[in-house]
């Protein structure tokens, strides 16, 4: 009896494992003869309009092809794709949400080498392509490039007499923040708002000083921390502790006029356009380049690209390659520009088209802000990036809540990264 039970239990367990392991890859539905279906992984399809815009454009350009999105919850995207690829899933095109995942998948040999189509095309204007270069081989091609710039509330800056010029330094930025801060209590309008992410302070100083966030020596963060803490101490920005405690939403901060300036990524442009279109916000906004270090030439900021790759097990690799190439091309760029997303392909015509969108600011400085001279990758690609990121984030919090001075915080970053990760 007992032995029999064990047998039964084993059978049940095996069955359960088999059931959970095999729930993947639906067959490519042919439907009405000769039609091709191309499957593409995406996140939050309903709230990420660029996907539908691209798919519609691709289908229009390739009659008889139907794009089948595989929709995945944004927060689970990396985990889900990792599992799908590990299980031999046959989805044709895999969207690379970030560069760190790309390096994982490509090093495991799960993506198809598409160096031929990268070389075939003129990629001189394709921003962010370098991030996908693995020993002169490419497994993905970027179609979207986000980078950071300075949003400001024109109504508030005009009232305070602040006029942005080309090439604002961090000191001038702090002075503007002082001039723009007014009121008290719940009615207070802050000069600027630094969101709680570490990149707001750390990635920008790495980009502008040339520092390496994987190096284990973080003295190059010092100046930027002094700027951020100075603003906080003077009450010209919502302090970090309060922002964390009330889980401050940067969109609300800017759209309700609670802050006059805000450094943020370009992805937020489509957010503002949508909020204004729906009448949720009346903010009169414009863009300026990120403030720079004194004496620097040109505009340096940071950002990160998004790309499409072809699955090694793709059902239809040729069509998948065609899609990747299309997304990075002029036609693809035009399609996503229409929904307010910044394409990786940056030509004057595309920028022109972008600024013709309804609700976009029309001034020259905004356009200038849109074409920075140099965009440095937010976090360099490495298998150690994730561990280092955790440490840098923890010490960032301690510095920002005033528990450690920048010097002490940076010292612990150096010590911890060296002893826990690099050793």
């Amino acid at each position: 009896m007992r032995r029999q039970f064990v047998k039964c239990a084993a059978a049940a367990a095996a069955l359960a494992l088999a059931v959970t392991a095999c729930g993947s890859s639906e067959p490519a539905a042919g439907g009405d003869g000769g039609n091709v279906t191309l499957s593409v992984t995406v996140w939050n399809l309903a709230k990420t309009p660029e996907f539908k815009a691209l798919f519609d454009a691709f289908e229009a350009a390739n009659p008889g092809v139907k794009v089948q999105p595989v929709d995945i919850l944004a927060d689970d995207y990396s985990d889900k794709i990792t599992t799908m690829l590990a299980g031999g899933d046959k989805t044709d095109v895999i969207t690379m949400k970030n560069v760190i995942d790309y390096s994982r998948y490509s090093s495991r040999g799960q993506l198809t080498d598409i160096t031929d189509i990268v070389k075939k095309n003129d990629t001189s204007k394709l921003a962010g392509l370098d991030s996908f270069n693995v020993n002169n081989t490419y497994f993905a091609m970027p179609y979207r490039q986000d980078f950071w710039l300075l949003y400001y509330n024109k109504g508030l800056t005009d009232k305070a007499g602040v006029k942005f010029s080309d090439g604002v330094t961090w000191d001038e930025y702090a002075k503007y923040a002082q001039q723009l801060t007014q009121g008290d209590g719940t009615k207070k309008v802050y000069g600027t708002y630094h969101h709680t992410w570490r990149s707001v302070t750390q990635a920008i100083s790495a980009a502008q000083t040339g520092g390496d966030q994987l190096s284990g020596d973080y003295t190059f963060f010092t100046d930027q921390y002094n700027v951020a803490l100075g603003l906080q101490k003077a009450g010209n920005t919502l302090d970090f502790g309060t922002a964390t405690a009330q889980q401050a939403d940067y969109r609300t901060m800017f759209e309700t006029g609670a802050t006059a300036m805000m450094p943020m990524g370009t992805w937020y442009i489509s957010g503002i356009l949508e909020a204004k279109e729906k009448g949720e916000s009346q903010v009169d906004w414009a863009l300026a380049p990120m403030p720079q270090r004194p004496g620097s030439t040109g505009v340096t900021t940071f950002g990160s690209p998004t790309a499409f790759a072809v699955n090694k097990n793709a059902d239809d690799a040729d069509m998948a390659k065609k899609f990747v190439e299309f997304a990075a091309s002029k036609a693809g760029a035009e399609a996503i520009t229409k929904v307010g997303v910044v394409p990786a392909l940056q030509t004057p015509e595309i920028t022109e088209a972008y600024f013709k969108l309804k609700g976009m600011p029309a001034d020259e400085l905004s356009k200038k802000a849109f074409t920075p001279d140099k965009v440095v990758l937010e976090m360099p690609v490495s298998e150690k990036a994730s561990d280092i990121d955790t440490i840098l984030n923890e010490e960032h919090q301690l510095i920002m809540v005033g528990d450690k001075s920048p010097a002490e915080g940076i010292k612990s970053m150096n010590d911890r990264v060296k002893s826990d990760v690099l050793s």
Partner: protein
Amino acid sequence: MAHVMTQQAPTADPSPSAPRRPRVWRDTLIGWSFILPNFIGFALFTLIPMSAAFALAFMEWDSYSTPEWVGLENFQKMVGDENFRVALFNTLYYAAGHIPLTLVAALCLALVLNRKLRGVGFFRTAAFFPYITSLVAVAVVFNMLFNPTAGPVNQLLTALGVADPPRWVASTDWVMPTVIVTSVWRDMGYYMVLFLAGLQTIPREYYEAAKVDGANAWQRFWSITLPCLRPTTFFVLVLLTIQSFKILDLIQVMTDGGPGRSTLVLSLLIYREGIREGQFGYSSAIALVLFVIVLAVTVAQFRINERRSAT
């Protein structure tokens, strides 16, 4: 049922009961069939995953490649891991605050609400309410209450003349007390119900007799209520201990381990190392250590309780 479960399996004792075999078999089968639905669920979703996790603690696995046997390497790594030490200390800190405070608060509430008051039903429900409130809502509301600049708590303290009130969740020194207060508030209603049930089993005659002998309220509490409540107190203590060591949800929503690492607890570390970093072997090793700690504390509590009951 109890008879069936304690019955020896027939294959274990061959000759003496051989003639009665079919009957015993049938009994055993019936017994199995009763517990089978529950056992299958338990085995599939608890026993097998737990055993697998314990095995994983001795392996290196990123959920992608084949697991690799590494022996005690994960445990060696843990000894040198500062995050683990910080998390262990924070877990103990949390338990040391949460267990006694919740116990005392729940007992006091139960004593107050055990009287014949007008509207006692309402107050009992009110005290139980925090426990059934969504945890995310609790975390958000307490974060607002303890907001260092605009929160009502600090506004009150300032009004009372405190010049430099604590910065609560924005301070590494105060964040753990804040989390403890929040969780005490949330949990005390549940344990109050357990205490109330315990209080109602104490015969009224004891109190009457004590009163006749001239014992005051404190003496009655100390010599009658507390000793009679011991089984309940023990049960509450065991539940509280296990709950405290496993704390994850409230901290995840309220502080996410911050500022810095000041509220990083073991469960949060397990989650981070496993799900976020994909180091399932190391994560399982930490889970195993947490399991052993909880088991040791609980066993110790049982031993102490047994010894006390014996005297």
